[in-house]
């Protein structure tokens, strides 16, 4: 897994609530057997006009944001389908952190396994970020994962939560599978004490 330490970037603002994973990547882009080319499907329903041409008004199509690595999203981001293609597409496009007031459970789990950091902030901070970025689209914010700090250039800082295990995996680039593989003896012992299922 890609290591996540610190990040400094301008922010794409897309603060609608309840953005579901069908919006992040529609089902028609899931017909793959690998993880390639998924960035093409990122927010496809919003990025492209019905003619197939790109919608110049959609923030991801604005050249100003082409190198942005942080997405400012609305509450309950990533609800709906469990498709891990959603964080894959975001990461392939270049997003490394999503800021929101809340994340859907499965999306959060999937994001953390792909080096994509979900940053949960209070509503007050979220509103402030939306306003500040609206006024200054070139504002860069800094994410410091080891310190769990999100900072704006004017000195405003906020601490964000993350569970210690996911933090360790991200900071050190550890695949969580390794943890499970280290517990195979216990898993075998657990299986042995189970009453065999009569299938």
């Amino acid at each position, binding site marked *: 897994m890609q290591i996540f330490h610190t990040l400094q970037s301008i922010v794409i603002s897309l*603060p*609608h*609530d*309840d953005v*579901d994973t*069908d*919006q992040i990547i*529609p*089902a*028609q882009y*899931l*017909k*793959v*057997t*690998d*993880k390639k080319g998924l960035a093409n499907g990122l927010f496809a*329903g919003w990025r492209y006009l*019905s003619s197939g041409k790109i919608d110049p008004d959609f923030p991801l199509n604005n050249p100003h944001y082409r190198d942005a690595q942080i997405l400012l999203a*609305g*509450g*309950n981001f990533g*609800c*709906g*389908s*469990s*498709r*891990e293609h959603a*964080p894959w597409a975001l990461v392939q496009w270049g997003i490394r952190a999503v800021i929101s007031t*809340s994340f*859907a*459970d*499965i999306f959060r*789990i*999937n994001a953390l*396994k*792909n080096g994509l950091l979900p940053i949960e902030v209070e509503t007050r901070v979220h509103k402030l970020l939306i306003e500040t970025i609206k006024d200054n689209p070139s504002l860069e914010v800094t994410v410091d994962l080891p310190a769990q700090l999100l900072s704006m250039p004017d000195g405003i800082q906020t601490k964000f939560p993350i*569970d*210690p*295990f996911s933090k360790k995996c991200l900071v050190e680039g550890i695949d*969580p*599978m390794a*943890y*499970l*593989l280290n*517990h*195979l003896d*216990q*898993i075998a012992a*657990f*299986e042995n004490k*189970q009453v065999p*299922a*009569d*299938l």
Partner: protein
Amino acid sequence: MTSQNTLFEKIWQSHLVVQELDSPAVLYIDMHLIHEVTSPQAFNGLREKGLKVRRPDLTLATMDHSTPTKDLLLTSIDESGLKQLQQMETNCQEFDIPLYDLDHPQRGIVHVIGPELGRTQPGMTIVCGDSHTSTHGAFGALAFGIGTSEVEHVLATQSLLQYRPKTMCVEFSGHLPKGVTAKDLILALIKEIGVGGGAGYVLEYTGEVIRALDMEARMTLCNMTIEAGARAGLVAPDNTTFEYLKNRPFAPHGSAWDQALAQWRTLQTDPSATYDKKVSLDTSAITPMITYGTSPDMGVLINSPVPDPEAEPDPTRRAALRKALNYMGLTPGQALIGQKVDVVFLGSCTNGRITDLRAAASLLRDRKIAPGLRMLVVPGSASVRRQAEEEGLDNIFLASGAEWRYPGCSMCLAMNGDQLSPGQYAISTSNRNFEGRQGSGGRTFLASPLTAAASAISGKITDPRTLMV
């Protein structure tokens, strides 16, 4: 007094392999369901790491999302869909996993066949790379959707890293009024608590109304629990559960059945156990429900008008409602009853079971669907299709003018070519009304099979109670 536990806590505790400080629990998984869309990258991961599937015997594979429903010909789907199906066959062969492929007599939507085969049983932990895995909670199994990385974890170790969710008791009290089904109950709940209302929780459904529901209705309820953002839904097993399971192919038989039954009967929340949260709903005031927006919590009693975004005090919610109504092409204050419909989709893991087909057929018998309207009836599994044909339901649907299809996810997520055209309105018995979910630019009203059938007849959103004797 012995410790008092909720049903969730009992299942969680009995599947805990390891719990170390500052780490998620290692939770053992009793059944792993896989399908062609969310598993190929997990198998690639196994190959790259040189890992095997630990328990092929606890893994059940099917094809449902990309499969054709017009016929069973592989020429009916596009090249990328075909590649997924072929890859699924290769993966299952290489890793020795039983596959319910296109020709299998018991194939179907993963969340329909698990219960049908008796593979889904009380007290189990069940996962699948599919959010509607919550369906299996109807049996008192802890069942939830996972991502593809986690699919790989379970394939390799039959275990999953999990943080313990909180518990919410959802009590449905009162009685079920005429025309009100499990679909209406869950849409009413989601409207009440919102699409993020269940985040971080496992919901346990309780109350007299739940006890009176049959298994298929309970599956509908648990299926859409994810639409409230919850990890999983649970219904404690009872005689209805046991009756359903008895004699199913993979259910225990003989003395093993008696042993299982004794154990399953313990799967109840203890009387003094406490939940982290409680919600109550009086079902007596519920009518058939319908959604008007692009999120499953944008639902109303069917005779209500489309809400006015300007009356919404919260600015974010107001903006969301405006955006949704704009997409849906609806006017605030307009009646939903009478709104034109182009397509009716009856099917999906939410409402593609035999009782759903029977309910729709009860209204369509000796009636025609509206001229120009398209209705797809897509059974949830090959068994559901056979059963419906034995009962003559296929003839009722065909005589009404509907299409009688082969099983699959079909228009629920429009991956296989079954889809809406831009701007079309559909009444759908599936689970998601998201923008473009049923086809780019398509507009979805979620409702029960009864409401879908009634609306197919008139070509407009129709209260099914007007057709019920």
